């Protein structure tokens, strides 16, 4: 079956999925409560008539099916509506935040992926050695340590005590410019990335290493590895060419999943580091029941995950000739 045909068919299958997910999110959201009530609860001077006016203004009084169809109509035209808070278009809010989240996540995910390859291979080859136990301990630490705790420790040490790195935001730490000797936007951005990237890489790394180590241990037992050695293939090539390609598929799946879900991102990390990203905005929007923004971010995340899944499947078929796409 042709590749283009396959992709088109998968894309068509995505349509009912996207609609289904949007419908479910819509219903769950409405079950969660009344955003106007929530927004005005702290304001004693507001009258019920004013609340009614706001509900009318945002179309929240219409029957739910009508509201949903209106939302869907806007959605297919690429419009997510306006935030209930401040009235900024959701499209604009998302596009202003998406790059910051993507930057943070992509760097962390790829760093974790590439560091985990030698670490995973090495600890599998040196199974039960001191080096293996070290790698495993670090991995277990990475899995079990809470992200917010680790983030706060890093902030305390590197921002608060040492004053080397900024603790919040993605840009602008003028106090650092004298350190670099120049006013440099790039270095500034880099400095802001260091701590959140460290936290996220560490969290991702742990799973990656364990997955690859387990895969390598399995693959290294196979006859084709022994056969490669018996044929005089140098050990490095046996490991990094013949074994790794067989052991890496679960890691590629994880990579696809992480990249797909990356916009849902890291709300905790973004919150700890006050990162101006989508994850933090998602949490805030959910707490405030900011319907248009919640729906907008949900749909962006959904579409990303579906596309990443498709790409993962294509990569899979490319790596493993036994997998056929159809």
């Amino acid at each position: 079956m042709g590749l283009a045909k396959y992709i088109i068919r998968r894309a068509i299958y995505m349509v009912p999925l996207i609609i289904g997910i949007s419908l479910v999110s819509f219903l769950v959201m409405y079950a969660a409560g009344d955003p106007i009530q929530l927004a005005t609860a702290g304001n004693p001077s507001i009258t019920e008539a004013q609340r009614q006016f706001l509900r009318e203004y945002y179309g929240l009084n219409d029957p739910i099916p009508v509201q949903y169809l209106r939302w869907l109509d806007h959605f297919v035209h690429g419009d997510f509506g306006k935030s209930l808070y401040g009235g900024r278009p959701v499209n604009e809010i998302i596009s202003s935040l998406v790059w910051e989240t993507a930057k943070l996540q992509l760097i962390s995910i790829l760093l974790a992926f590439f560091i985990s390859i030698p670490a995973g291979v090495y600890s599998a080859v040196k199974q039960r050695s001191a080096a293996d136990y070290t790698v495993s301990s670090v991995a277990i630490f990475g899995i079990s340590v809470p992200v917010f705790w680790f983030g706060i420790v890093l902030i305390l040490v590197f921002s608060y005590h040492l004053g080397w790195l900024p603790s919040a935001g993605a840009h602008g730490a003028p106090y650092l410019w004298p350190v670099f000797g120049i006013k440099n936007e790039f270095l500034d951005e880099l400095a802001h990335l260091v701590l959140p990237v460290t936290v996220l890489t560490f969290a991702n790394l742990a799973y990656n290493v364990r997955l690859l180590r387990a895969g390598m241990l399995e693959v290294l037992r196979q006859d084709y590895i022994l056969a490669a050695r018996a044929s005089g293939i140098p050990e490095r090539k046996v490991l990094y060419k013949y074994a790794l390609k067989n052991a890496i598929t679960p890691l590629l799946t994880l990579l696809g999943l992480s990249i797909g879900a990356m916009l849902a991102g890291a709300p905790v990390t973004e919150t700890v580091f006050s990162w101006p990203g989508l994850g933090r905005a998602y949490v805030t929007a959910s707490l405030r029941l900011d319907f248009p923004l919640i729906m907008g971010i949900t749909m962006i995340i959904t579409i990303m995950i579906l596309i990443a899944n498709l790409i993962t499947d294509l990569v899979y078929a490319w790596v493993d000739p036994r997998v056929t796409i159809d």
Partner: protein
Amino acid sequence: MNLLEIENLKTYFFTEAGVVKAVDDVTLSVERGCTVGLVGESGSGKSVTAQSVLRIVPRPGKIIGGKILFNGEDLLLKKEEEMRKYRGKKISLIFQDPTSSLNPLFTIGSQLADIVIEHEKVKKEEALDRVIKALRIVKLPDPEHAIYQYPHQFSGGMKQRICIARALLLNPELLFADEPTTNLDVTIQAQIIALLKDLQRELGMTLVMITHDMGIVAEMCKYVVVLYAGNVMESGSIEEIFERPHPYTEALLKAVPRLDETRKLISIPGNIPNLIDPPSGCRFHPRCQYAIDLCKEKKPPLEDVGNSHFISCHRWRELQGGRS
């Protein structure tokens, strides 16, 4: 000088449950240009012996003693990089299961050409030409096309031909065939055996045929080495061994299936012993119908009983008298 002389080889596996003495004091020799059978039941140490010669025993296995003289040079004294140059080039190994011994994610051409490239530092095109030649020798149909295919696109018999081609790529002096037909259909088994026989004769290769099938031994081999629980029970010419067998070989011979049946071993009563804590004295004594107290207490040495026949048994001479 024999092509291969193994002296007192010990290869143990250091597992969590204990030390598995998989190959324990094995001595054998392989004459150049001959086909030698290495026989014994499952778990007797045949594969580990072959892997030891190539020094590819997987962890937690370790060669802990002995000598492996290949053309008179002790392979156990070679540096790793020097040893690598023997693997696939001077000594090759064919595995039992062709499906699991080919890498599923690489084309036949790329995984075989890599071997030529690693040993001879030639260009990819030249290496592929050599691969095609080898595939033609093993009578794989349409080798020019086959090099672009993946292992799963071939049948079991074809895969084993590919594995044989891989082993023969660089014209090795010594070829170990580790039960190369066990996982194949009966008709295909016969074809592969015929192919190996032809190749051995045409290329003048030295072949060590690992099997637990005495039928194959009778068909192919000039000499036989019989292993049991990591020990050599006997070794000698096929005639000697069939006529004056060691008690264990005798039991094995009784287990030869009739020719029209699948070549599955009818097992000797009792189980192969645990190699972490092997039986004292003669390792075969718990299952031997001739066992006496001495067999339990003292390990019989491997003795030359004439006609280049070596036997490790306390009672063999005495039993010959009774046998007439």
